[in-house]
């Protein structure tokens, strides 16, 4: 009786159409999901692609507070800032937080022992690896951009050569400022021990990486601390080894080693290479996230 009255209902055909629709879509989705379950790990597209920053020697994790603030105000963006400090006993303290839904947060990793020197930098690379693994486990991103100021660039390079495993995670872009690949050495022909070590293991660096190195100069030779030749020595490690290697020379106002990250020219380059650059520039990613938010 009940079914008969339902069949008389003028909307019966709509209900049937709905059922047919689900069956029609259900069959291909069943086949698809069965076929895809093995590659599901690859399909997991992490929405978050953080920018990880390492400050130079004698700077703390607060080194980039102003940089992030400037980026946020100049470009009208709302990147959150998370700061980690790795202590000498491998313990990590967190300050700040990543806003939920922020796909491009800044994460700064600093060290309580932030001294200069090759042995120390190697230690810092090991500490960074601990922090990096924690971040990876905590936020589950599968790609990121990197920035290193001064020795921060050395830490990145050592990290890439000694610790990084690019099977599970991709480093899209690396940008460094005044990174002394040859320490205080002016001539690129005199290789320090560190440079030699870095060149030896350069094959470990992921070949898909795009790297831009900025050197500041005042009076043609150095940025007041790091010689141009020392930054330029990075080419022995990266050139021809990765996808793109670019050396940028920055001059003029605020081209000094420590001031550089507040120069307008630098902010523009930083935003262009590190913040604005998505994994795939053709993807309608930004639009997608705007839709999903509604």
């Amino acid at each position, binding site marked *: 009786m009940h079914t008969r009255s*339902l069949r008389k*209902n003028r*909307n019966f055909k*709509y*209900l049937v159409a*709905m059922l047919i*629709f*689900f069956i029609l*879509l*259900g069959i*291909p*989705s*069943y086949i*698809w*999901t*069965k076929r895809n*379950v093995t590659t*599901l*790990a690859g*399909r*997991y*597209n992490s*929405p978050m692609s953080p920018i990880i920053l390492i400050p130079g020697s004698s700077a703390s994790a607060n080194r980039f507070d102003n940089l992030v603030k400037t980026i946020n105000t*100049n*470009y*009208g963006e*709302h990147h959150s800032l998370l700061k980690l400090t790795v202590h000498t006993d491998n313990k990590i303290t967190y300050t700040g*937080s990543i*806003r*939920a*839904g922020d796909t491009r947060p800044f994460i700064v990793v600093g060290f309580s022992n932030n001294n200069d020197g090759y042995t120390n930098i190697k230690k810092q690379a090991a500490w960074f690896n601990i922090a990096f693994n924690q971040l990876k486990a*905590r936020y*589950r991103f599968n790609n990121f951009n990197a920035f290193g100021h001064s020795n921060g660039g050395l830490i990145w390079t050592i990290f890439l050569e000694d610790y990084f495993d690019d099977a599970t995670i991709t480093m899209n872009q690396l940008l460094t400022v005044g990174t002394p690949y040859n320490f205080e050495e002016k001539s690129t022909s005199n290789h320090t021990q560190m440079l030699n070590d870095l060149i030896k293991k350069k094959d470990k660096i992921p070949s898909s990486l795009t790297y831009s190195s900025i050197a500041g100069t005042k009076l043609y030779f150095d940025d007041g601390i790091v010689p141009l030749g020392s930054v330029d020595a990075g080419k022995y490690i990266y050139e021809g080894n990765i996808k793109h290697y670019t050396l940028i020379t920055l001059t003029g106002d605020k081209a000094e080693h420590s001031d550089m990250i507040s120069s307008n020219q630098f902010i523009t380059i930083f935003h262009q290479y590190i913040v604005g650059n998505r994994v795939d520039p*053709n*993807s*309608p*990613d930004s*639009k*997608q996230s*705007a*839709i*999903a*938010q*509604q």
Partner: protein
Amino acid sequence: MVGYYIEYIVGVFMEVKFNNKFEEKLVRGTLWVQKLLFYRVIQRTLLLIFPFALFGSFVKIVQTVIIGKEGFLTDIFPSLNNDFIYRQIDNIATGLYNLTLGWVSVIAIFGAAKYTAKYYQRDDQFAGITGVSCYLIVDYSYSKVMPFSFHPQILGIRGLLFAIVLGIFIGWLFKKLSRPNPRLEETSRGPASSVIERAFISLKPIIISLILAIIFSILINITYYSEAPGNFINSLATEYTSRNNWSQLGKTLIFSIYTIVMSFLGWSGTYSALGVEKMDVLSTVNLNYALNKHTAWNAPNPFTSSTLYHAFATFGGTGSILGLIIAILIISKDKDFQTVARWAMFPSLFNIGSGVMTGIPIFFNVIFFIPFILAPIADMLMAAVAIQLHLMPPSVYPVPIGTPGPLIAFIGTNGSWQALGFSIVAIVISVYIYIPFVKMAAKVKILDNLSLRKEGED
């Protein structure tokens, strides 16, 4: 004539019988609310935006399901790749979407200001246009990169409540600051001088509204504050994790209720009805478990937002709207409800519920508030029980955006037939929850039309 109406009224009251005290109270309460100016304005405004929301939701299907990067059909039938045609379709869809469903709040403030002004017998056209200007001023993004741009977040459905409140405020300003135009009816045909007079009558509220809007706009960073409470809740939802399954269940339920209530008010909650893209930590742990063990059974976190809310509580859009549509198609005799249900059915199959939300309307609708919360919660509890009793695996695998609601659990469990079965049970539950309220809504409508007629008689 009067005798006829009395007969009619008596007839209708005979027709409307209440099954119990609760129903009577609810219907009477709704009738009372519907008489409020605020509510009348909301209702008319929603009907104004309905066609745009409906068309926009069709475009949104194209945008998210067919050409979206992680869209359902893009994943299932990967034929349309990144080529010229794809981009053209993408551009067309984006344009159409942004100027239909993407800016309904602008249309809403036009309606709200217009109807409020009309109620107070002020110049409604000027009020509406002033409302649009004010809203765009408030939403203006003072950006150096894009010289003439607006924050898209609150132009869409998310800004609805804000737009309506602001619109009513502007209508009220027109009441306070201008006088009724004695020749409002004639101006369209009348001489030019009366048009000028009409403009000057409304000049004061127009200028004051615009100035207030710009002050408001400068003082607050609207996008930041509109997102701030949501962000706070979001961070709670994603960061706080618990080992205990029951507190997990409680947490998922609380955030689901928060999302549903917020959607009811035209705001947005923690969980999006479209897609499970932003996975929380617990879901990621589940996924990793499933990828290692090659099964979804016994995943470590059975009661997350993806296993319960996304998989079972969003059929047809937030609030298990699909249940309402089916309920209307089965039992409703109301022509309007049926038309809306038929038209909004298709987008709703892909979990885009804006058509029904504005067409019925469900936004701010006292009667539908109860099932709107109750149906998803019942579905989630049913799913939780089923998972706890090991009758089905939790859905842990990622699901493409815009996957039709009843297929989410099926795909999310890698094609578990039990999950599909429970999805059907979830539809049945939500239909049964919605049915009595659809009946009540019909009664409210009859009584409401009746009182409108009476007002007309007076």
